[in-house]
């Protein structure tokens, strides 16, 4: 689920409306979140004096009676408001007297920040039971709101109790804290993570969008883990990801995931049928330029077979001079120079000349790393085809720098 869709759902809940009613609001995810947090606080403040009197009066009653009044008279919303105003021990005693169904209803309304101690003190078996009810209702958002406040052991127990991997994905997409999200994903056993990705691959394309949004909230290590797990599965899983990205123009989400993959997984990626589609290559090229990720895309180009690289070259042929400059400036080691030069070799002569003219402009800044990369046979062979387009003086300087880098040995 995109950030904005998630925020629409949350704001709709505060306003007691259907999310679709809010869909047209011209607010981005950050603004929706600001509005929702502020409105929640305002609603709470508006009722606070009365709620405080109710909390005070509840101390006069036996806890059993107070719990019954809470359940049968005040209901989930008002109990959720009051709970943060009770002393933690009192709140815990009352809560444990209430049935799971009522607590599930109350958890929908409660602001976890107001009930931090209560949530942390809840026994794991009660949390698991309430979580089960929320999952059965498809209320993943409510569950996600509590992740920040539950102990790691309790979260692990909840994860173990939810048999549906896609439900775990839906919950994870609503978790707000990135650090906690990484911890939560770390609690999912690898076999279940693999099953989750396989399920995403077999589901409607919107689920890959959700999974990509989630992966992009995670650090590079987790992006790599998720990308590699996807690559280990049947190619249909990655084909589904590519088809989703093509349908929804989600290359900004796909490229970071592919960039984080291992070399083996990237090799699987470039073998996909879907990647042969010029529109897919154009999407990747456009994302690389927009996200300043040429350093990540160029090694992929190096891994492509010649026909695919030729298609990539056809896409790159039409990019701006400024984008060519960014490609040249991104090349910095053997893999990236190989990607850049091998792709340039697939251009028509006019395209090759254009690329080398831009390299000539940046020659002084690039010559050392190019000479170093040219110690690799593959880079050297690509360079041999292109170097005639450089001015004579730069050719000589490049040759001397390559010689110096190789310790005087001529590259074969």
């Amino acid at each position, binding site marked *: 689920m995109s950030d904005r869709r998630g925020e629409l759902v949350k704001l709709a809940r*505060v*306003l*007691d*409306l259907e999310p679709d009613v809010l869909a*047209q*609001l*011209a*607010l981005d995810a*950050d*603004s929706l979140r*600001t*509005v929702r947090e*502020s*409105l929640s*606080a*305002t*609603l709470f*403040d*508006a*009722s606070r004096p*009365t*709620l405080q*009197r*109710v909390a*005070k*009066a509840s101390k*006069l*009653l036996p806890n059993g*009676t107070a719990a*019954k*009044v809470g359940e*049968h*008279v*005040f*209901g989930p*919303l*008002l109990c959720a*408001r009051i709970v943060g105003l009770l002393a933690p021990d009192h709140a815990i005693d009352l809560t444990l007297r209430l049935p799971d169904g009522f607590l599930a209803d109350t958890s929908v309304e409660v602001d976890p920040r107001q009930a931090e101690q209560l949530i942390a003190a809840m026994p794991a078996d009660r949390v698991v039971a309430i979580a089960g009810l929320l999952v059965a209702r498809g209320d993943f958002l409510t569950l996600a709101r509590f992740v920040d406040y539950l102990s790691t052991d309790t979260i692990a127990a909840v994860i173990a109790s939810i048999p549906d991997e896609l439900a775990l994905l839906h919950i994870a997409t609503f978790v707000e804290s990135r650090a906690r999200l990484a911890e939560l994903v770390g609690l999912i056993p690898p076999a279940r993570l693999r099953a989750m990705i396989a399920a995403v691959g077999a589901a409607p394309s919107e689920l890959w969008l959700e999974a990509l949004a989630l992966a992009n909230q995670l650090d590079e290590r987790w992006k790599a883990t998720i990308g590699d797990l996807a690559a280990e599965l049947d190619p249909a899983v990655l084909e589904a990801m590519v088809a989703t990205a093509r349908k929804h123009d989600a290359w900004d989400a796909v490229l970071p995931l592919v960039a984080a993959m291992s070399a083996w997984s990237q090799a699987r990626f470039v073998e996909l049928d879907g990647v042969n589609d010029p529109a897919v290559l154009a999407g990747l090229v456009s994302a690389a330029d927009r996200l300043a990720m040429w350093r990540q895309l160029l090694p992929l180009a190096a891994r492509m077979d010649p026909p695919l690289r030729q298609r990539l070259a056809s896409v790159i042929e039409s990019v701006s001079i400024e984008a060519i400059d960014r490609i040249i400036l991104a090349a910095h080691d053997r893999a990236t120079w190989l990607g850049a030069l091998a792709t340039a070799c697939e251009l028509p002569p006019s395209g090759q000349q254009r690329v080398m003219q831009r390299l000539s402009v940046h020659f002084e800044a690039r010559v050392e790393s190019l000479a170093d990369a040219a110690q690799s046979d593959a880079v050297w062979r690509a360079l041999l085809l292109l170097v005639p387009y450089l001015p004579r003086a730069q050719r000589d300087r490049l040759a001397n720098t390559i010689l110096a880098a190789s310790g005087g040995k001529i590259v074969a």
Partner: protein
Amino acid sequence: MTPELLAETKSELGLADATPLVTLPTEQLAWLRDAARTARDREQAALEAAVDRALDHVPWLLRGAVKRILFP
């Protein structure tokens, strides 16, 4: 969008500043103001009704003390 409407909506939502709202067209701003107002009124009404009904469930001996707290 009028400055008055912007100020009203900001106030209904309890925002410290109106920056998140400035992109909204007038009709959406008015709609959001009314939705926030409705949510607040609905919640207040539910709370008042619950407080009235709660007294019926309080043991007779405690009812006076509870009433004094709830309706000072």
